[in-house]
């Protein structure tokens, strides 16, 4: 390919600057929106991986039919927890920590409170070994609460402050944790009896099970499922796999939505290039008359669309990166999590989509241009 070809493509786009810029903007915005949409999936994967790596016990025992990320109303019966404890040595279990979760407030992280009830006398470190104390005590008393750093900061909860779990249950803040950079910063740890009282049940949400030395998590989870009726046991790996499946499904949904923007972007390029072909019919006729083959004209037009796709894709990636940074700044401030992440594979995928978009959009105009009859194109009929 000669510099004349590059000059032709570049100068043709520059000769109609407003139209070229508008088309480019179309691709930039559609690529950026796709990048941003898909970056949420990548962010979730990263956050989940980081979150689960800080979880202590390796196996989670849940009532059958309940998944790790949708605990709902507590359904794990105390008898089941007892049965687990009784068979602990036989099943390779080192410890059983039943807990119960209660969420107060709406979806807005500013107003939502997550209470995690843990066995009395136990520190939340038993569940999240990375937690460290900033002030007060790490073990909540019978009517006490240990509060995650971000939640404490957001609601100005100091030591001694009173929290109301229900009209009849009040808790005093006895400990405040240091920031950990994960979801545990937004949790209030309280004795499980308090949460059970508020919910009017003796049940638990789930039980975290530690694995004895010499046993493997998969093995223990299998043994629990075989021995204890009505429960499901998941290892951290199972949870990750489940989460990955869920994130992948949501990826597809988000990609589907962004596909609309991409199709619009593609049609913009196709329209621009097609108009440009019609305006340059004589030029293509002249090239053919001078000896250019059909493939040359096809390539010339396709390259023009491809250039729009690649440049638009790159700029879209940059815009998506900026938008992702903005989202992360916001979610970081609100819930202490970076929700959006632009990984190498996402960037590569976005560019690939932009390139394919350019090629698809350029195909029809390129075919039209290459099939022009020389006499008709030159107006020599």
């Amino acid at each position: 390919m000669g510099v004349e070809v590059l000059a032709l493509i570049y100068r043709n786009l520059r000769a109609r600057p407003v139209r070229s810029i508008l088309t480019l903007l179309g691709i930039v915005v559609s690529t950026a929106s796709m990048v941003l949409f898909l970056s949420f999936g990548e962010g979730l994967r990263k956050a989940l991986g980081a979150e689960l790596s800080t979880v202590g016990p390796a196996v989670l025992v849940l009532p059958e039919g309940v998944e790790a990320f949708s605990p709902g109303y507590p359904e794990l019966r105390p008898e089941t927890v007892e049965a687990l404890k009784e068979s602990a040595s036989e099943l390779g279990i080192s410890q059983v920590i039943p807990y119960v979760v209660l969420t107060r407030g709406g979806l807005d992280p500013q107003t939502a409170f997550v209470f995690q009830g843990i066995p009395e006398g136990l520190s939340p470190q038993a569940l999240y070994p990375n937690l460290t104390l900033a002030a007060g005590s790490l073990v909540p008393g019978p009517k006490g609460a240990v509060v995650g750093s971000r939640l404490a900061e957001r609601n100005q909860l100091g030591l001694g402050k009173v929290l109301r779990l229900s009209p009849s249950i009040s808790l005093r803040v006895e400990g405040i944790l240091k920031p950990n950079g994960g979801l545990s910063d937004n949790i209030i740890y309280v004795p499980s009896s308090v949460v059970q009282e508020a919910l009017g049940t003796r049940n638990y949400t789930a039980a975290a099970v530690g694995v004895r030395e010499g046993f493997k998590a998969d093995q223990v989870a299998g043994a629990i499922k075989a021995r204890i009726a009505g429960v499901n046991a998941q290892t951290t790996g199972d949870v990750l796999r489940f989460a990955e499946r869920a994130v992948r499904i949501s990826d597809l949904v988000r990609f589907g939505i962004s596909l609309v923007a991409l199709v619009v972007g593609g049609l913009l390029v196709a329209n621009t290039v097609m108009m440009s072909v019609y305006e340059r019919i004589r030029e293509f006729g002249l090239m053919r008359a001078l000896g250019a083959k059909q493939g040359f004209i096809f390539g010339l037009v396709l390259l023009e669309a491809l250039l729009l796709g690649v440049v638009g894709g790159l700029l879209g990636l940059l815009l998506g990166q900026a938008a992702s940074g903005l989202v992360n700044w916001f979610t970081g401030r609100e819930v202490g999590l970076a929700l959006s992440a632009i990984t190498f594979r996402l960037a590569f995928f976005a560019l690939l989509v932009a390139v394919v978009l350019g090629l698809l959009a350029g195909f029809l105009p390129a075919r039209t241009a290459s099939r022009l009859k020389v006499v008709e194109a030159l107006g020599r009929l």
Partner: protein
Amino acid sequence: MLEAINLYKRYHQGEVDVVAVDRFSYRFPAGLTAIVGPSGSGKTTLLNLLAGFDVPSEGEVWLGNTPFSTLSEDARSELRLKHMGFVFQQWNLIPTLTALENVAFPMMLAGIGLKERTARAAALLEAVGLGHRVKHWPHKLSGGEQQRVAIARALALNPPILFADEPTGNLDSASGARVVELLLHQAQEGRTVILVTHDLELARQAERVLRLRDGRLMEIEEAPARRSAVSSC
């Protein structure tokens, strides 16, 4: 070199068939051949067929030993690139390429390297008296200058055949004279120059004049005296 055998071209115009070229046969020798005739006599259609822009309804165009008019579009393009140069009345230059790049364009198609084609294009522009206009855009050149760039481009790959379709049609007499002088020089160098024109003054400078009427070759006028006059200048 270039030979038309029994060329016949029929167009459908609505429900009527129009014969644009009617049984035209001629073997074009080296030197300047002018094709003249009134509007609608089939000059442009004939040139389209001879140059392979279009295919005849019947008959053939031979380029040396190759049945040119029976080849595919791309094969004709390739032969055009190597063996033919063109100067049209208008729409001669690619508007987004400079004069130099326009001249270099066929050389790029032929796969000649950037350095070589740039040097050769500059030399060709120099030869047509446009050495000082190499970086100019077509719209910054006068009509005569544009035609001279087209001549330089037509000569880029040193083709044996040169087509000129009303090359002076849009020019003032001084610019026209310069263009004619360049074409005559090419004929004198031994190329086959085929000049299509309705300007009889211009045609008189050719060695042969083919007169067309209603698509038919009515008369071939040889001009030995003029030929010798051309050769001696």
